[in-house]
């Protein structure tokens, strides 16, 4: 039986982030669904896994973790010898650059991009309607971020360095959703960003995450 358990659902971007890291590392795990509709994530026993009441939570033996980006970092560290390397090889300086771009995803990209995904996709699932003015305002902010990414990717093959790292991986779930909407134009109209999106979404590990959604 897998010692790694992920409590979450394949539709959730944060859960997908963790699943992507597990597949990249070729790790066995068990996905334990959390009944979001019934509010299971806001009650015990889930709250003992994550007191903030958000999916996913991960158990590895008797270690319990939450916050998807802390979980992926743990997976990268604990299983550094398995599967794909998810950190730039090198010394403190190279690791520091990875941390910069990890923070960029978390602080600059995700707050805007996940709101767009919420407006365009998730609102519909909960019987609410998209606010076009909000989408327009958010896209105005996202293009400024993507212009910076375009400049960065003209100098570096991936965001942190010339290899694929968690800094790229963390973007996958929200980009995956946005590429299924009209917002995809923002990515496709920037050549380097477009190329980068194609590269990271073509990874076999990512295809497995997307497959889980279809099941």
């Amino acid at each position, binding site marked *: 039986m897998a010692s790694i358990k992920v409590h979450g659902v394949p539709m959730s971007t944060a859960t997908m982030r963790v699943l992507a890291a597990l597949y990249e590392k070729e790790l066995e795990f068990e996905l334990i669904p959390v009944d979001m509709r019934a509010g299971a994530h806001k009650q015990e026993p889930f709250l003992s896994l994550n*007191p903030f009441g958000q999916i996913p939570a991960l158990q590895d033996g008797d270690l319990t973790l939450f916050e998807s980006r802390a979980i992926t970092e743990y997976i990268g560290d604990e299983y550094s010898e398995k599967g794909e390397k998810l950190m730039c090889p090198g010394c403190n*300086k190279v690791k520091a650059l990875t941390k910069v771009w990890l923070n960029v995803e978390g602080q600059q990209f995700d707050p805007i991009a996940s709101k767009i995904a919420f407006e365009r996709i998730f609102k519909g699932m909960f019987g609410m309607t998209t606010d076009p003015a909000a989408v327009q305002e958010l896209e105005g902010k996202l293009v400024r971020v993507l212009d910076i990414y375009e400049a960065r990717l003209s100098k570096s093959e991936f965001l942190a360095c010339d290899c694929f790292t968690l800094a790229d991986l963390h973007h996958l779930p929200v980009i995956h959703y946005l590429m299924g909407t009209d917002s995809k134009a923002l990515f496709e109209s920037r050549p380097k960003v477009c190329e980068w999106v194609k590269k990271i979404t073509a990874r076999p590990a990512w295809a497995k995450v997307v497959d889980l959604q279809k099941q």
Partner: protein
Amino acid sequence: MASIKVFGHATTTSTRRVLLTLHEKNLDYELVNVELKDGEHKKEPFLSRNPFGQVPAFEDGDLKLFESRAITQYIAHRYEDQGTNLLPADSKNIAQYATMSIGMEVEAHQFDPAASKLAWEQLFKHIYGLTTDQAVVAEQEAKLAKVLDVYEARLKEFKYLAGETFTLTDLHHIPVIQYLLGTPTKKLFTERPRVNEWVAEITKRPASQKILQ
């Protein structure tokens, strides 16, 4: 001349996060002032240091960084053996490190969004001649209260957020907490006994006092 340079403004919480770390480590540095009111952070040459146009930016020799929480982590690792240890007691213990990482993510994604908005509404808006929106204050205080309830439970088990020792997780909170203590939001901290003790501990540290000067 110091090989470490911080390009920022000594009043901003993000610049202070970095200065705190440097003080905890007793590291020499030069603070290069970025005049925010002149929009210096949105123009060259600052944009070459941080294309997102936000303070602080950082330099250590030929290494250039931005994003305050990336900078503090770099300093904590690179100068691990100097000054205060800001990593877990056994920094090679991956599970302990993961616990600190969770705390840093919680600060960045759960605590800071509400806390920063409260500091903006009640303090920084006045600098720009704008008025506090009390509805926003009420909304954000409700969010912050929920986070602090989780902190209260956590701090009943541990002296600090990541365990028994002071780490980056606690440090990242200090600048915005210092500002909130000068607003009515202070009550959210004082009415929770363990949180109140923790706030007193972390804000009385010599480094925490230095950044207020």
